[in-house]
C-alpha cells in the first residue's frame, strides 16, 4: 500500500520517538549493568573499583536468592491463577442482566483504584490483624484461635492481597470480552443441545482465550515488580519467608547500602523477566494472532 518514498518518510517521522524511547530504556539499563560490576557501597565511598562477577556470585550464593526467586514466581503464578479463575466466574455473573448493574460493576472495579500500600494496610490492619482484624473476630466467634496470617502464612497472605487488587482488572477485561460474544452463537449452541456447562466449555471459554492471554501478559509484567504490598505488610519476613526478588534488591540497596549488589540483582531480575516473557509468549502468544 505504500511507495518507497512514503515508507522512507514514515521512517523519518517515527525516528525521533524511537530514538527517545531507546535512550530512555538503554541509559538506565547500561548504568545498572555498569554498577553491577563495580564495588559501590554508600557506607564506604572511598573504596571503589571493578570487581568482576563478584556481585553476581554473591547473589547466587545467597540462600535468600533462591527463596526470593521461588517467592517471586509463586506470587506471579498464584495471583494469575486466582485472578483468571475468579475473574471469569465474576465476569459471568456480571454479564447476567440484574437490577443495579451499573452500580454493581463500579463496586467490583473499585479495588483497582485503591493504591497498593493503602490496600495492603487495610488488609493488614482491618482483616488480618490478630486483635482488631475481621478474620480474628470471626475465628473468635467460632471459639477458635485467631490465625496469625502475616506471621504463619506470609506468602499466601501477600498473594491474597495482591490478587484482591488485581481481580477487578481481570474481571473488567474478561467482562468486555464476554459481552462481545454474539448471542446468536449461544442460541445456536442451545439449539444444538449444549447444556449451560457445555456452552461455557465450548463457546464462552474459547471466545475468552485471547482476553485471558492479555490478562496474563499484562499482569505478569506488573506482578514481577510487586513491592509496596510486601513493604507495608511483612517487610519480607518473617525472616526472609516473603522476600521476593524486587524486595531483596531493595534490601541490598537501601538497607545494606550496597549499590553494586543491588544493580547485579536488578540485572538478574531483568533476565528473569525476559525468560518468563519468552516462555509466556511461546505457550500462549499464539492466541494473540487474529
Amino acid at each position, binding site marked *: 500500500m505504500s511507495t518507497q518514498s512514503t515508507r522512507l518518510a514514515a521512517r523519518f517521522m517515527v525516528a525521533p520517538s524511537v530514538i527517545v524511547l531507546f535512550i530512555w530504556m538503554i541509559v538506565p539499563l547500561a548504568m545498572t549493568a555498569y554498577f553491577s560490576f563495580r564495588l559501590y557501597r554508600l557506607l564506604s565511598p572511598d573504596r571503589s573499583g571493578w570487581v568482576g562477577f563478584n556481585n553476581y556470585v554473591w547473589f547466587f550464593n545467597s540462600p535468600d536468592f533462591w527463596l526470593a526467586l521461588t517467592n517471586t514466581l509463586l506470587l506471579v503464578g498464584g495471583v494469575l491463577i486466582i485472578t483468571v479463575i475468579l475473574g471469569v466466574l465474576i465476569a459471568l455473573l456480571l454479564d447476567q442482566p440484574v437490577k443495579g448493574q451499573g452500580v454493581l460493576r463500579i463496586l467490583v472495579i473499585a479495588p483497582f483504584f485503591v493504591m497498593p500500600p493503602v490496600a495492603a494496610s487495610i488488609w493488614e490492619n482491618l482483616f488480618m490483624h490478630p486483635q482488631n482484624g475481621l478474620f480474628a473476630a470471626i475465628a473468635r466467634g467460632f471459639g477458635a484461635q485467631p490465625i496469625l496470617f502475616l506471621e504463619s502464612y506470609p506468602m499466601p497472605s501477600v498473594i491474597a492481597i495482591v490478587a484482591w487488587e488485581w481481580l477487578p482488572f481481570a474481571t473488567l477485561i474478561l467482562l468486555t470480552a464476554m459481552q462481545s460474544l*454474539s448471542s*446468536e*452463537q449461544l*442460541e*445456536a*449452541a*442451545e*439449539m*444444538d*443441545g*449444549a*447444556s449451560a456447562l*457445555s456452552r461455557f466449555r*465450548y*463457546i464462552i471459554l*474459547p*471466545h475468552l*482465550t485471547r482476553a485471558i492471554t492479555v490478562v496474563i501478559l499484562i499482569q505478569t509484567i506488573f506482578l514481577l515488580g510487586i513491592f509496596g504490598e510486601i513493604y507495608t505488610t511483612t517487610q519480607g519476613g518473617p525472616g526472609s519467608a516473603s522476600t521476593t526478588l524486587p524486595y531483596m534488591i531493595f534490601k541490598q540497596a537501601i538497607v545494606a547500602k550496597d549499590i553494586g549488589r543491588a544493580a547485579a540483582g536488578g540485572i538478574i531480575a531483568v533476565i528473569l523477566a525476559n525468560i518468563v516473557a519468552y516462555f509466556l509468549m511461546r505457550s500462549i502468544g499464539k492466541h494473540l494472532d487474529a
Partner: protein
Amino acid sequence: MGQITLKSVRKSFGEVDVIPSIDLAIDDGEFVVFVGPSGCGKSTLLRLIAGLEDTTSGTIEIDGKDATALPPAKRGLAMVFQSYALYPHMTVKKNIGFPLKMAGMDPAEAEKRIQRAASVLNLTNYLERKPGQLSGGQRQRVAIGRAIVREPAAFLFDEPLSNLDAALRVGMRQEISELHQSLKTTMIYVTHDQVEAMTMADKIVVLNAGRIEQVGSPLTLYHTPKNIFVAGFIGSPRMNLIEGPEAAKHNAHTIGIRPEHITVGDGPWEGVVGLSEHLGSDSFIKVDVPGLGIINVRGAGELNVHHGDRIKLAPAGKIHRFDANGMAMA
C-alpha cells in the same frame, strides 16, 4: 415427522403485544415461508417455535405433543441463523459435528454423518478450515450442515440469505429448495424478501404487525389476495391501488391492478412517464396519471417510452376490488 401447530400463541415484551394471537398449522414436509415487513413479528414467531423465546400464552405442538415448555434442544428442531452463528474457533468439521458431540453420539457414526452432510453441501474439501477462512456462501452451507446432521423434525431458517450478495442469494435459494426436495423435511423460512417467498414456498404466511394477514400457496396469494396489505406486499413491482372516483366506478373503495394488467397505447388514462427501467425482457415504467397518482406498468421489453413522454394507458385484465376496511370483495 415435523408437524407443528400453534394454538392462540401470544407474545408480549412488557406492555407491547408483539404477537397478539396466532393460530397456524404446518404440515409434515411443508416448506412454509413467513414473510412480512421488518418488525412484523416473523422472527419472533420463529424464535417462539424454536424455543428461544417463551410464549406469553397459548400452546405450541410439535408432532402432536405439547412443546410449549420444552427447552430448544428437546424440540428436535434445527435453526440456521441470519449471522450463521458458526463457532469461530472450531473447524468446519467440528462445527458440523457439534450437535452430534453434544448428543453424545458415537464418534464413528458422527464422522459418517458429517461426511455425508459435507458431500451433500460440497464442503468436503473445507472440513479442516475455520469459518473465518470461508466465503459467505460456504459459511451459509456450514450453518445448514450443522442443522442437517441432527436429522431434525423441522428446519428453521431466520433470514439466512440476507448477508449474501445478489448472485449468491439466487444460487443458495435454489440449493435450499433442492435440499428440501431431497430431505422432504418440514422447513420454516423467515424472510422479508417476497421474491424468496414466492420462489421457495409451498405455503406463504403473510404477517403484519404480529397478525397473520393470509396463508396460502404463492399463486393463491398473488391472484386472490384477501386484503390490501397482501395485495400490496406480494408482487413486484407493486400492485397499483387506486381510490376515489375511478374505484367507485367498480363499486369499490379501492381497486387494485397488477402492473402487467395495464396496456400502453390507447386508453382512458393519460399521463407523463416518470421513471422507465428497461431490463431487456421487461420494461418497468412509472406513469404519473392526474387523478390516479403514480401507476406502475410492466410492459414488453421492446416498449419504447422514456422519461417525459406522454402516454395513454388502459386496464386490461383482472381488477381486484377492496371495501373500505381493505378487505377483498368477491
